[in-house]
């Protein structure tokens, strides 16, 4: 599955990469990503996840050919 990350997440991962293993939901995806870079764990816990159609939560069943967008907290203020 394809992963796209934005903003400060690019300090931890490539902006676009292929995940070898399939994650079936966002919690599983988070665990895979922490294995790739455990420094990102805290940040990942505050991120939202989306597929092309919009935001998803952990109930959404990820498929092998999904592109998952990982969205850090907005700039806020």
């Amino acid at each position: 599955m394809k992963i796209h990350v934005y903003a400060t997440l690019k300090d931890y991962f490539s902006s676009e990469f292929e995940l070898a293993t399939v994650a079936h939901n966002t919690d599983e995806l988070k665990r895979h990503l922490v294995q790739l870079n455990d420094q990102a764990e805290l940040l990942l816990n505050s991120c939202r996840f989306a597929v092309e159609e919009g935001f998803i939560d952990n109930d959404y069943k990820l498929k092998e050919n999904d592109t998952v967008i990982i969205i850090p907290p907005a700039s806020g203020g």
Partner: protein
Amino acid sequence: MIRSSSSLPPVEVSQSSSEAIQPPLEVFQVISAAPLDMVELLRRAHHPAAGAVVLFSGEVRDHNKGRAVDHLEYEAYQPLAVKMIHAILAEATAKWSLQSAIAQHRVGRLAIGESAVVVITAAAHRREAYEANRHIIDRIKHEVPIWKCEYFHDGSHQWGNNCNC
């Protein structure tokens, strides 16, 4: 499950005010790499039934938390950001019976003093124009996937959770 892209309640257009007009929602490029054209945006916001127009411009400051800023870069996840900004504008238009609601956000590299985001609201009376304007910019800043990276004079950079305005 897939949730609504913006987690917004459905838009309900209020018909309660006698002056409420079904507002023509401005549809144009809400995310833009080109400099924001305030004159053109003010022209678009203009409406003969609007007595009050409020414009907000978020601009790049030369300092942030004591550090000299060289320039900024903004990044957006555009497909979602565009949908969410349109939904925020539509909701505010209905809630405050606005005659127009416009928002435009820059992406890419911005110099000191450039405008990163403009919000314009036009309403019959000024209370509505002010309140809607502030509501829109607050939601854009807190909810929409647009991020700022500050590049400092000392060569370092920082992705910001902290607003520049």
